């Protein structure tokens, strides 16, 4: 490995646009980091936020969700539904305390092999510089509440609730 | 030795005055190449632009008259001036396709219109009839190192179906002829733009603007000099160059040669006979710099 830390990145993609775009990157022999693992769906409309949660819990350091550009959906509106769903979900994660730099969304068409490479490369580099995501995996090892709050201000807030 | 080719010759008014170096050099060149030129006796003014500008019938009649006169001399009609060339060709073209106009002209000149004699510009004779290869062989003093911007102006190529000298929008005949002498031609943007022509008399301001653009373009392309085949273009670019420089604040010092001057020089005609002294922008420094005299 060339770096101290190689992030694990999961890409949830639709088969018609982004998967095909990634295929195009391959047939065009473009090079990009090998960190990404692609999970194929018929449509971004099929991608459930629970999958993102699961991937984080299973140790993904970064996640990409990518599909057809608006108006290009093979199923007409799947990506429009996905757009709303993830617009909301990322707000929730942000509120819970997840750094949104770890969750990326993109439209990559079947003709955009270059864009796929660009997005995967940038995301890999970004996550690499951020280091591993331990929030979720640490929870796996925790059994119960320690009862202590690290930050006095947090404690004040907590006490008042 | 017998001449290889023989032509009747219509010099036109300018070649006897402001464009006399064109006439001199053309005669010198043709003599060197052993091409015969016999001037049509008592030719008239072709009417040039002013005539057709306001009186097409007069313009056509004048040219038809000249064509009739030319019939008396053997050989295709060689024309040096682009304007005369254009008028004579236009006349042939229009009268050839328009029956009623032909009849009017015949009535005006009181003679049958003769359209048979081919009218040829000097360039055409050199490039086609004489041939580039022979021209190349005839060169004794190659113009190596001279970077030329060949300027066609309007009337050598336009409108498309009249002069039929070369491609209307992308002619190469001047380049071909010049390159046969070893000179280098530069690609440039204003080869076919108008110089303002006869506005030189009535609206010189117009001419200064147009010729200024042409000179600037040639300079941008890195040319040492301009080459023309029309006395009117020559007048506007050479005679008025000083004024252009004053008007635009740009310095050009760009000699404007008639194409026959340079060809004759390359073919060994003595520079003294080529009228370099008559040019307003002195070409001598350039020619000396390039070791051509």
């Amino acid at each position, binding site marked *: 490995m060339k770096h101290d830390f190689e992030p694990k990145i999961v890409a949830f993609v639709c088969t018609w646009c982004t998967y095909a775009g990634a295929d195009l990157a391959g047939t065009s022999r473009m090079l990009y980091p090998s960190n990404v693992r692609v999970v194929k769906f018929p449509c971004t409309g099929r991608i459930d936020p*629970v999958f993102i949660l699961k991937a984080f819990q299973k140790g993904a350091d970064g996640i990409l969700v990518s599909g057809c550009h608006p108006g290009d959906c093979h199923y007409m509106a799947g990506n429009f539904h996905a757009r709303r769903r993830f617009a909301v979900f990322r707000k929730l994660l942000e509120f819970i305390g997840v750094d949104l730099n770890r969750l990326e969304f993109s439209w990559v068409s079947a003709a955009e092999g270059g864009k796929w490479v660009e997005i995967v490369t940038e995301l890999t580099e970004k996550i690499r510089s951020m280091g591993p995501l331990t929030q979720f995996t640490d929870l796996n090892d925790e059994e119960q509440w320690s009862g202590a*709050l690290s930050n006095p201000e*947090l404690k004040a807030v907590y006490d008042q609730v | 030795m017998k001449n290889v080719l023989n032509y009747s010759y219509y010099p036109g008014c300018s070649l006897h005055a402001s464009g006399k170096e064109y006439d001199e050099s053309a005669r010198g060149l043709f003599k060197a190449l052993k091409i015969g030129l016999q001037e049509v006796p008592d030719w008239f003014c072709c009417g040039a632009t002013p005539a057709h500008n306001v009186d097409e019938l007069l313009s056509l009649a004048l040219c038809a008259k000249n064509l009739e006169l030319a019939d008396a001399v053997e050989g295709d009609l060689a024309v040096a001036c682009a304007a005369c060339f254009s008028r004579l060709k236009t006349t042939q073209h229009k009268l050839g396709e328009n029956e009623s106009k032909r009849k009017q002209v015949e009535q005006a000149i009181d003679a049958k219109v003769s359209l048979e004699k081919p009218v040829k510009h000097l360039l055409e004779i050199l490039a086609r009839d004489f041939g580039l290869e022979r021209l190349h062989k005839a060169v004794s003093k190659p113009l190596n190192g001279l970077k030329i911007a060949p300027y066609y102006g309007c009337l050598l190529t336009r409108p498309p179906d009249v002069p039929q000298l070369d491609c209307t929008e992308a002619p190469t005949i001047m380049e071909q002829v010049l390159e046969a002498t070893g000179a280098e031609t530069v690609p440039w943007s204003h080869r076919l733009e108008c110089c303002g022509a006869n506005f030189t008399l009535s609206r010189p301001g117009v001419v200064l603007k147009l010729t200024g653009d042409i000179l600037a373009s040639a300079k941008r392309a890195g040319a040492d000099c301009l080459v023309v085949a029309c006395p009117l273009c020559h007048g506007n670019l050479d005679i008025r160059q000083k004024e252009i420089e004053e008007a635009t604040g740009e310095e050009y010092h760009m000699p404007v040669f008639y194409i026959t001057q340079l060809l004759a020089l390359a073919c060994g005609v003595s520079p003294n006979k080529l009228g370099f002294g008559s040019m307003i922008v002195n070409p001598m420094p350039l020619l000396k710099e390039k070791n051509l005299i």
Partner: protein
Amino acid sequence: MKSTGKPEPTVTIDTSGYAVATEEIRSEAKRLLLEKIVDAVVGYQSGRRKGSAVPVIITDPAQAEQLVFSPACVNNLSIYLTKAKKEIRAKGKLAVVAKGCDLRALAGLMGESQFKREEVVIIGVTCAGVHSAGVQPNEPLTSATIAKKCRECSVHIPEGADLIVGKLPLLPDLTPTEKELLEKLDAMTPGERWEYWKEQFTRCIRCLACRQVCPFCYCEQCLCDRGRPQAVDTSPRPSGNMGWHIVRAMHLAGRCSGCAECERVCPMDIPLNLLNRKMAQELKELYQYEAGLTPQEKGPLTSYDEKDDQSFIK
């Protein structure tokens, strides 16, 4: 909690209208049952402890006298109308007593095909507020005993009910404590927020009372109970707790009517309504959507607009 840190002076809230409401509910329930317009009425009756109130379903006009309305009527009765409560639906046509916040849930449930408007008679109650969790039921309603949600209530009058009973008193200005807490959390770094929620969720014992009481958690089988595949660890450990609360908040996004029953019933005092309120705030900002204000055919996450914001998408 007040951002300035100064304690709020205790203000008493006028609840004289509640007695009026009680009378009107009784007579309306009686009439509806007598005229056989409905087969049952879902409302509140007094509990065993003095001043307390519990949900009741009456079918006999004579029982109408049991019905009450008081600051102790905290429950959101809309839950009895979901398809999950088959035994209640089986009674036939229902009437239900609904506060403004409950009515929002009813509107949402109608949008989700849980019942049709014409199947239910809604007796709306004007409400100045109800008790906070843990308050003794016979205590007067004051700024100290009022539920947090009621501090920021915008639906004191249940517009859209078949009948509106009670009378709204002059309401004092109360500090929007939840709003202020949200602002405070929003101002934190993600890491700090994570610490906050981690500590909250870690306490969760997965009793699922929050789910039980939620009018929108009417699924026959909760995704989070499923074993194959297991979306969320079902045991009450930090990892699974985090998953459960995220999934819960996501599933309620755009649907939650803000009744805060989840938070009221939480034995571990986890501020669950904060999450719901946050999501509601985001949906309002993103799609100008507020759940339950009017019955809508489609929710914000079951519809879309081609021009939706996509600034977050590369």
